[in-house]
């Protein structure tokens, strides 16, 4: 595998960890509006973030099909139009497969800058669909959501790559 210089060789990703992380992202999305914030428009979409992360890092495992199914689940939970998030996540997953070879050559902060348009497109699709189907608009606060998601990209990169950064041969001095 061709990699940027000086980058650590990563362990293979565990499928169970990928599934669990997507599950946790869905749970966090629900927690946001069940417990904390109601239905504010600027809330970051953790599921979109984690989906994009895995479709960039593990494109052969998490692809457009997963994005579609999880998008439908998101629609049912949020009681938006069935298919609205599915379409947004599908397009976002496709764009992720377009840029995934290039993106990992950049440092993590500039990766965040490059995924910002993807998040923005995904939110814009939702917004345009809502406008055309029901004529409803929310305020400008909606534009904060993709920015917050892009700012969370470095944090998510650290957390989700941590299991792959462990030592390949753990011993007593390096238990993890």
């Amino acid at each position, binding site marked *: 595998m061709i990699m940027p210089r000086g980058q650590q060789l990563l362990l293979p990703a565990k499928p169970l960890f990928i599934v669990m992380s997507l599950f946790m992202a869905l749970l966090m999305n629900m927690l946001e*509006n069940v417990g904390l914030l109601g239905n504010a428009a600027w809330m970051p979409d953790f599921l979109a973030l984690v989906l994009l992360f895995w479709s960039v890092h593990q494109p052969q495992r998490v692809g457009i099909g997963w994005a579609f199914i999880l998008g439908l689940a998101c629609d049912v*939970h*949020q009681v938006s139009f*069935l*298919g609205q998030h599915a379409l947004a996540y599908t*397009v976002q997953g496709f764009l992720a497969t377009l840029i995934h070879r290039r993106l990992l050559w950049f440092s993590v902060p500039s990766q965040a800058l490059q995924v910002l348009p993807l998040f923005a497109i995904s939110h814009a699709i939702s917004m345009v669909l*809502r406008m055309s189907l029901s004529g409803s608009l929310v305020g400008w606060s909606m534009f904060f959501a993709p920015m917050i998601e892009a700012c969370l990209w470095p944090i998510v990169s650290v957390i989700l790559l941590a299991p792959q950064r462990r030592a*390949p041969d753990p011993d007593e001095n390096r238990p993890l």
Partner: protein
Amino acid sequence: MPLGTLDRTPPPFFKQGATPLHKLIFFSCLSVLIMFCDVRWQITQPLRSLFSLALAPIQWMAQQPGFLSARVEVFLQDKGDAQEEAAVFKKQLLDQSLQASQVDQLQLENKQLRSLLELKDRVQTTGQVAQVIYDAADPFTRKVILDKGSISGIHVSSPVMDEAGVVGQVTRVYPLISEATLIIDKNHSIPVLNNRTGARGVAFGESGGAPLLELRYMAANADIQENDILSTSGVDGVYPPGVPVAKVIKIERSADSMFARILCEPLGRAQGVRHLMVLEPVGKDLPARPEMEVVKTPSRSGGR
């Protein structure tokens, strides 16, 4: 280097599956199709119920921190606060007990008078208490999710109210949960009656997104004042008549419009309320609508 350090499964050369572009086209078309079925024909309810059932355990998990914090809050509540609250409720109970004791007598009297006048008996409604699980996350609409569904006997279009007035209407029922649209939702309308004048009207959710109602299509010179109370008129066959809905807070009369712009504040607390009453829809007991007479247009055949 130990085994398992690197991902040793080689990428497949020949069985690569569909290309991303094909997948994009397939899934985009599928989601547009589903959306069309959902919006136009409303036939996606089985699919929604399926996903809803699958999501139920995750939603249950997401609720737990909220329940826990509520329990901690109750545990840490000041004794003084609790006594104050109890005193307020006691006062309310006293206020209502007088009315309640008169209701039986009035109902009997009403029944006798109605039988004397040969009117149909007043529609009786029953209800059950449901708890709000969460506000729907969709920022474009005003909906809440209730913790009772079709298994508990909730029907579509059941009115939902709290102790102060109408809150909304059940618009979608899943097996375990149901979804209620609030009266402040932009696409929701409710027929109302002005308690002071008896004038009927229709109140819509405010289109700007504020938690208010808008009484539309009232003529600019209509007799309506601030602080008028609007209650349900009961002509819709959904809401029982006489339940308070809203209070008029602002009337704008402009010269260039035939109608006055009347803003009302809902009396039922739409947000931050935990327990709601779901009533049986009135329409089940009402007589069926008369058949619409089809107006025959004179045929234009022949002619040329």
